[in-house]
C-alpha cells in the first residue's frame, strides 16, 4: 500500500507506541480490503461503548489505547453508553456495572471523544463527498445514503484506530464505483415510522451482503421515517449504503449507472407481520433508536398533553437542548441523555416487555436487553403513555 511520508512516520513509531499500533492495524485492514492508499477523514465516529456489548475485552482494549495520553487526531464522536440513569420499580444497575461503564466513558473522553450519541449527524452534518471513518450502522447508512458523504461500515475498534491516525483505507463506499445500486427495492404502504422500520428490516433480511446497495423506491421524504428505515436495515443487513429515490444526493445519476441483480417488493402484508396495532404487553415505551433530533423531541413534547401516566423512556444526546430535556422530564418522561437502553440488560431492572417504534431496537432488545419487544407506531406509544 502507498503511504505518505507522514503516514510512514506514524507507522515507524515517531508519534508514540499507540499511534504506531493504530496505524499498523489500519494499514493491515486496508491491505486486506485491497486499498491502494489511505484517505484523510474529517470526522470519526466510534461504536462499541456499552459495557454490556464490549465487556472486559473492549474495556481492556480501549483503556490500553487511551494509555500514554493517546489523543484522537480528528473530530471524533462516540456512541451512547448503557442506561446508567435507568430505574424501574426502584431497581438500578449495580455499582460494579456502572463503574466499569464509566471507565469506558472516561477513557474515550480523555482521548477526545465527544457527544455520546448514535446519531453523530445531529452533532455535525457531513457534507457531500466528505470522507469519514464511521462505525455504528445507522450512522454509516445515514452518512452515505442521505448526506452523500463517504465511509466504510467500520467496526467499532477500527473506527477507534482511524480516529487516532485520522485516516481510513480508500475502499468500499470511499470509491464511486462501489456506490452504484445493484438491487431494486420497491416499498408500498410505508405510512409511519414503525412501518418504515419494518420495511428496512425486511430489506436487510433479503439483502444481507456487505456489497448490496439497494435502490429504494417508495420511502416518504420524512427525516424520522428515513432514519428508522436505515437503522432497521442496518440491524438485519450488512450493507453500508442505500440509494433512496428523492433523498440520496445524485440519485438519478446513480440510478442511470445501476446494474440490478435482483428486485424486491415490500408490501402491506410483509409490513403487517412486524408492526402491531394494539398494546397488549408493555412495561416501558422506548423511543429514541436512533437518538432523537431536537425537532423529533419537540414533536413528542407537543403530544404529551398533561403528561405521561405510564413509563415512557426517551433517549437522545445533549444536542436536543437542556430546555427540551427539562420540559420532557416535567411531563414525567424519563430522558436518558447520552445513553441507550437497547444496549442495556433491562432484565436486571425487572423489566419484562417493552414497546418501541424502532426496528433496530426490536432486533436487539430480546438478545441484548433480555426483554420481549413489540414494534408499534410512535403515535400509539405516546397515546399508551398518556394512559389512553
Amino acid at each position: 500500500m502507498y503511504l505518505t511520508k507522514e503516514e510512514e512516520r506514524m507507522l515507524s513509531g515517531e508519534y508514540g507506541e499507540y499511534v504506531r499500533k493504530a496505524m499498523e492495524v489500519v494499514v493491515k485492514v486496508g491491505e486486506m480490503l485491497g486499498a491502494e492508499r489511505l484517505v484523510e477523514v474529517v470526522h470519526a465516529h466510534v461504536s462499541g461503548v456499552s459495557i454490556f456489548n464490549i465487556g472486559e475485552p473492549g474495556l481492556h482494549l480501549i483503556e490500553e489505547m487511551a494509555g500514554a495520553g493517546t489523543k484522537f487526531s480528528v473530530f471524533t464522536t462516540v456512541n451512547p453508553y448503557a442506561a446508567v440513569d435507568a430505574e424501574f420499580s426502584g431497581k438500578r444497575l449495580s455499582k460494579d456495572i456502572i463503574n466499569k461503564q464509566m471507565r469506558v466513558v472516561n477513557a474515550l473522553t480523555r482521548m477526545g471523544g465527544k457527544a455520546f450519541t448514535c446519531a453523530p449527524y445531529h452533532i455535525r452534518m457531513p457534507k457531500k463527498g466528505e470522507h469519514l471513518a464511521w462505525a455504528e450502522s445507522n450512522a454509516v447508512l445515514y452518512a452515505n445514503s442521505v448526506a452523500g458523504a463517504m465511509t466504510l461500515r467500520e467496526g467499532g475498534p477500527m473506527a477507534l484506530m482511524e480516529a487516532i491516525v485520522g485516516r481510513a483505507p480508500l475502499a468500499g463506499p470511499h470509491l464511486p464505483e462501489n456506490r452504484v445500486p445493484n438491487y431494486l427495492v420497491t416499498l408500498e404502504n410505508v405510512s409511519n415510522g414503525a412501518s418504515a422500520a419494518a420495511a428496512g428490516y425486511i430489506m436487510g433480511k433479503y439483502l444481507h451482503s456487505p456489497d448490496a446497495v439497494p435502490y429504494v423506491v417508495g420511502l416518504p421524504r420524512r427525516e424520522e421515517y428515513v432514519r428508522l428505515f436505515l437503522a432497521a436495515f442496518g440491524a438485519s443487513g450488512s450493507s453500508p449504503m442505500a440509494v433512496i429515490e428523492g433523498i440520496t444526493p445524485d440519485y438519478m445519476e446513480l440510478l442511470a449507472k445501476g446494474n440490478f441483480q435482483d428486485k424486491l417488493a415490500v408490501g402491506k402484508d410483509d409490513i403487517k407481520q412486524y408492526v402491531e396495532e394494539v398494546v397488549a404487553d408493555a412495561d416501558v415505551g422506548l423511543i429514541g433508536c436512533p437518538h432523537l433530533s431536537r425537532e423529533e423531541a419537540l414533536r413528542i413534547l407537543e403530544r404529551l398533553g398533561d403528561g405521561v401516566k405510564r413509563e415512557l423512556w426517551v433517549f437522545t444526546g445533549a444536542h436536543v437542548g437542556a430546555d427540551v430535556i427539562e420540559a420532557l422530564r416535567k411531563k414525567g418522561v424519563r430522558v436518558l441523555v447520552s445513553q441507550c437502553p437497547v444496549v442495556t440488560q433491562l432484565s436486571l431492572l425487572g423489566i419484562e416487555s417493552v414497546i418501541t417504534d424502532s426496528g433496530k431496537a426490536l432486533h436487539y432488545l430480546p438478545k441484548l436487553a433480555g426483554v420481549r419487544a413489540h414494534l408499534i407506531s410512535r403515535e400509539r406509544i405516546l397515546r399508551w403513555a398518556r394512559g389512553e
Partner: protein
Amino acid sequence: MSKAVARLKRVVGGGDNVCGELVVADEPISFLGDAVPEKGFIRGLGDVAGRIVVYPAAIGSTVSSYKIYGFSYYGKAPAALVTGKVDPVTLIGCVLGGIPLYEIEEPIELPDLRGLSGRRACIVGDLLVLVD
C-alpha cells in the same frame, strides 16, 4: 479419505494447516446478540472454540468486532471463520484477535455445506478439505 468441498481465499492468515470440527450456519450470523465470547459459544450454532465456523455473511452491529476479538481474549477462539463474503466489521475483529478468516471463492452454495456440521476438516492451502 480426504475430499475438498470448497475453494477459499485467505483474508486474515492462519498457519498452513487449520483443522477443526465444522460448524456450518445456513443463516447469516449476528455476532452482537448471538456470540458469547467468554463461553466460546454462538447462540443457534453451539460451541465454536477450536472449530471451523462456516457461514454465509455477518450482519448487524459494528460492535460485533469486539465479540469476535472477545473469543480470543478469553482463549475460546474458533480455529477459523469461513464466510461467503468478508465485511470490514468481521475483518477488524479477526485482525485484533488473530483469528484466521477465509472467504469462500468457489461458487459452492452454502446449502451444500450445511450437512457437514460435525465433520472434521482442514484448510490446506486454498482448499477446505474433509479429513474424516
